[in-house]
């Protein structure tokens, strides 16, 4: 059965974006492991090259269309109707771009901090880049699952090999946690194939599955996505993984990897199991609100820089899932935008922590103090990202949070109000963190640290620009989503009608 929904207008942007870093990683394998400089420059060139390669996605994307664009399709395993099919729509296109940016910054931030097994490190980073772009571009479930799991291995190695003192525990925990979720998703994928006979995601989005099956599949996929997001109460791998991961690992985790959970909800749960999603939306909203408040309050007592930011991610991702499951335009666009925002802001915060850790070799908040006097430029950058995280108007965080609270409030007033308290808590823990690290007298443990270098400024600057760009002109980004989200909502509302019909029929019988 050949896919007919994907228009065959071959372009090779996405395949290039997936293959270029993987090929570069393969090329690195051939290079002498002692030639660190060459390895680093090749990695940088590959990631920047990939960044240039994905520019057409930004410039040539047709914002008025809700269809898949830049689609490429090749037959792969015909016996199982498996195709290599990639493409992006308004939901995924921005994540491909973000992945390319983040990967480049990860190469830059690791420049001097990774001294051990340099070659393998950059191979892992480039491999991850290819896999994560693959996750966002895949339009075939089999392909998607392959990329999804492919992410896991290099990420596991990144934590387990280049991580902190307790890295093995964190890596195994991360691996088992996500694998448990993924196995259930795999069962779901197989079940879908058995019922429908296709792995084609675009076809499946237009296939109406029976309600009971939808419910089963919803929970099977939920297991995988909720762990990745991570939603309360399956979030406890995140603080450990973040704390132990090297800077680049934390950045990829925070900026891209945990977005895949929320992306999964948008790509699978909502369009393929619309009735189940609607039925389960209240439960998802409750879990989201718990995550927002729980994640926020628990930040108050964290003593470790990275752990605090990790818990703040739980809170912020609560906003994302709240937005998605408020099932209205503002909530969903806010949710998607907040995924980008969180990637930018928390990515930047982890970059910052990585930079300062490289100098001080401590993550204990109590070891800092007065850093603003020691590293003024660095503290200015950190300040911007802190306030973006708090959601100050003019920064990207505000636009996302406001739309989510608006959407959440429209869907469920209590949820909207409770989510808004998250904004207060966010200000408390971030400002306490900022004060303890940057203000008051200079702690002798960090006295005399040098300010960030030009390379590090270049690393942070793109994210700083994004903070204000999205903050003042979010239209440049929400414009991508409008058509896709609107059509997804039509599908959901259609699903609502269908669910109503089934209900009526059941009552009549």
């Amino acid at each position, binding site marked *: 059965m050949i896919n007919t929904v994907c228009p065959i207008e071959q372009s090779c942007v996405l395949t290039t974006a997936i293959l270029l870093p993987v090929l570069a990683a393969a090329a690195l394998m051939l290079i002498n492991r002692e030639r660190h400089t060459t390895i680093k420059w090749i990695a940088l060139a590959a990631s920047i090259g990939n960044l240039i390669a994905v520019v057409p996605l930004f410039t040539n994307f047709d914002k008025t269309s809700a269809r898949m664009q830049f689609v490429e399709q090749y037959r792969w395993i015909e016996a199982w109707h498996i195709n290599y099919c990639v493409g992006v729509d308004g939901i995924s296109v921005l994540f491909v771009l973000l992945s390319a940016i983040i990967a480049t910054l990860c190469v830059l931030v690791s420049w001097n901090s990774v001294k051990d097994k340099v070659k393998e490190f950059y191979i892992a980073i480039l491999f991850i880049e290819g896999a994560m772009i693959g996750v966002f571009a895949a339009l075939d479930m089999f392909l998607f699952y392959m990329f999804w799991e492919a992410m896991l291995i290099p990420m596991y190695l990144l934590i387990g090999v280049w991580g902190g003192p307790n890295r093995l525990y964190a890596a195994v*925990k991360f691996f*088992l*946690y996500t694998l448990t979720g993924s196995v259930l998703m795999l069962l779901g994928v197989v079940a879908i194939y058995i019922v429908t006979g296709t792995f084609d995601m675009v076809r499946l989005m237009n296939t109406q599955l029976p309600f009971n099956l939808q419910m089963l599949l919803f929970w099977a996929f939920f297991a995988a996505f909720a762990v990745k997001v991570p939603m309360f*109460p*399956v*979030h*406890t*791998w995140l603080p450990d993984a973040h704390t132990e991961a090297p800077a680049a690992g934390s950045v990829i985790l925070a900026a891209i990897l945990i977005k895949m959970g929320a992306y999964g909800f948008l790509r699978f749960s909502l369009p393929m199991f619309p009735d189940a999603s609607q039925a389960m939306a209240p439960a998802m909203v409750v879990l989201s609100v718990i995550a927002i408040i*729980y994640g926020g*309050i*628990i*930040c*108050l*007592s*964290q003593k470790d820089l990275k752990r605090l930011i990790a818990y703040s991610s739980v809170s912020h991702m609560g906003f994302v899932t709240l937005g998605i499951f408020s099932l*209205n*335009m*503002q909530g969903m*666009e*806010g949710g998607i935008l907040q995924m980008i925002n969180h990637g930018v802001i928390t990515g930047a915060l982890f970059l910052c922590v990585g930079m300062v850790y490289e100098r001080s070799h401590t993550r204990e908040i109590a070891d800092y103090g*007065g850093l*603003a*006097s020691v590293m*003024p430029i660095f503290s*200015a950058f950190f300040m911007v990202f802190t*306030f973006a995280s708090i959601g*100050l*108007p*003019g920064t990207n965080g*505000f*636009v996302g949070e*406001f*739309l989510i*609270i*608006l959407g959440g*409030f*429209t869907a469920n007033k209590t949820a*909207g*109000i409770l989510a*808004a*308290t998250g*904004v*207060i808590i966010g*200000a*408390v823990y971030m*400002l*306490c963190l900022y*004060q303890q690290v*940057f*203000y*008051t*007298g*200079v702690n002798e443990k960090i006295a005399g640290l040098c300010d960030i270098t030009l390379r590090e400024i270049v690393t942070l600057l793109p994210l700083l620009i994004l903070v204000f760009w999205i903050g*003042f*002109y*979010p*239209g440049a980004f*929400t414009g991508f989503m*409008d058509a896709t989200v*609107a059509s997804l909502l039509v599908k959901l509302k259609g699903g609502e009608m269908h669910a109503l019909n089934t209900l009526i029929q059941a009552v009549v019988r």
Partner: protein
Amino acid sequence: MDIRYYILIPLLPLLAFVLNIVLGKALIKRHAHVVATAAVAVSLILSVRAFIEASSGAVINQDLYTWIASGQFKVSAGFLVDQLTAIMLIVVTSVSFLVHVYSIGYMHGDDGYPRFFSFLSLFTFSMLMLVMSNNFLQLYFGWEAVGLCSYFLIGFWYEKKSAADAAKKAFIVNRFGDFGFGLGVILIFLNFGSLHYADVFKNLGVIASATVMICGSEVSLPTLIALLLFCGAVGKSAQLPLHVWLPDAMEGPTPVSALIHAATMVTAGVFLVARANPIFTLSPVAMNVVAITGGLTAIFAATIALVQNDIKRVVAYSTVSQLGYMFVACGVGAFSAGIFHLYTHAFFKACLFLCAGSVMHAMGGELDVQKMGGLKKFMPVTYWTMLIASLSIAGIPGLSGFFSKDEILWKALSSGSPVGKFVWIIGVVTALLTAFYSFRILFLAFHGTFRGTEEQKHHLHESPSSMTIPLVVLSVGAIVAGYAGVPHILGGHDWIAGFLGKVVGLVSVGNPEHVEGAIHSHAEGEMSHEWLAMAVSVVVAVFGVASAAFFYLKRPELPKKIATMFAPIYKLLFNKYYVDEFYGLIIVRPCYWVSENILDKVTDKMFIEGIVNGLPALVQWSGQKLRRIQTGVVLHYALVMAVGVFLLAVLVLLGTGPAK
């Protein structure tokens, strides 16, 4: 015609900020003030132009670009310059300009000189965006942005823990207010489908009689929206119960206190209520809440100010108290009187703060009035300007403060409602206290003999002219600003009420009773009441000043005696009614406790982690146990096999046995 010149008003300070923050440290250095002051000076000139155009009746309302759009939600960045905005523009740019000039002298030699000026510029930009916005969301943008600048500037000397703490506290306390404000904005959008003032105020009928259910009780929608917006105002304007941040905010450099925490940012709450007056007037309940909150805050803060010794904190509590007056005015529907007081207050309060700064400058940073005394002959300009400003705030006839405060008190009394009378009584008592504490610090600091150290005495000097000139200009403002609103009974035209009438309505209470009462106020019979009310104000003001003179000039030993006689009350006031301690006990500490002992230790580490680590442990444990079966000894296997065969045989035999 170039109608877009007004965009430059906020834009120039923004440019100055960018220049100073990027290049300040490396390139501009000691000349940072040139960039910043020039920018705000041009803004001031353009504001005057905007003001002139607004007084000729022109209103600019223009969208710049779509800021946020999603589905039906759409909000633009846009500017509205009407009469209310025009007055605010003048207040903001003129005080900001004077504070810039003053800071050249005051901040001279500080390590953060360029940083200071860049934040002043950023503040000016944010405040201008706040007052020039044409929709609620951009107002919210300016609102948060001034809060951010306030955070930066309170914590300007961040090496000091107290300064860093105060900055954090200011931001977080404001967040509590903004929580309500934000929900109010969302409710406005959900009911009007727009956040633009023009669209909202045009369609007020949509919500006029609507109600919502909250916890089983019916609440009118206008009341709910108005009160939510007022939450924001309570935070920003430091009203009860969110006033706690403002006195601590005095940790910032004094010019900042004058600009942000006296003249402009803290009045944003009053501006918000005045701007949203069509919504407030729909709800008598909300109006009464505004009036009562204002009144209680006014007297509450004034009582604290009576006993404080820190000169800046006295002025800070005085600001909280005066803001209370402005809310009283708004609450009784006299929005123009509230704005009038905002405008006169900007001059005399900025003047008081800058005088305090001048004193600190001379005293080497000393803030305790008990350690001052006799400064009059060392710093005559500071003394005279402070005297004028104190007379003005005390409400002595002929000065600005008298006109605006009297207008508020009269409007409260004449509104005819019980709430109006209640807040009038509070207002009169507060006026007495105001006169007293203002002159208390003046007398303690400038009269009598010097009580500081010899070294301080040796150092005493008048401040440089860059500091004294703004003082003089502001003190002139403290005298003449009030003549914009001379009431009819004194032969004036109450120009400002007419000017603002187009925005806030001449008689702006929706409640018909109130309207009638206000119309009556112009009748002959009410004239005598108005004279009487004015006489009361004058008497309490003079009495307040006189008693301060009696206690602190004539019988300086008395205050201490009284303090010991009423020790519990004195202690209560001196400790600001223990509000901070109370919040610490019921909010701050429980939150941290729950965070650390419940969420972190119990739910996360014990419960969830217990399960997560427990599962592999269980698998491992059962593996360990099951492993014992695999002993590797053939004899054991043979034994198990034999037993198994035996059991199977028994089963088969038993199964087939009875069937036979």
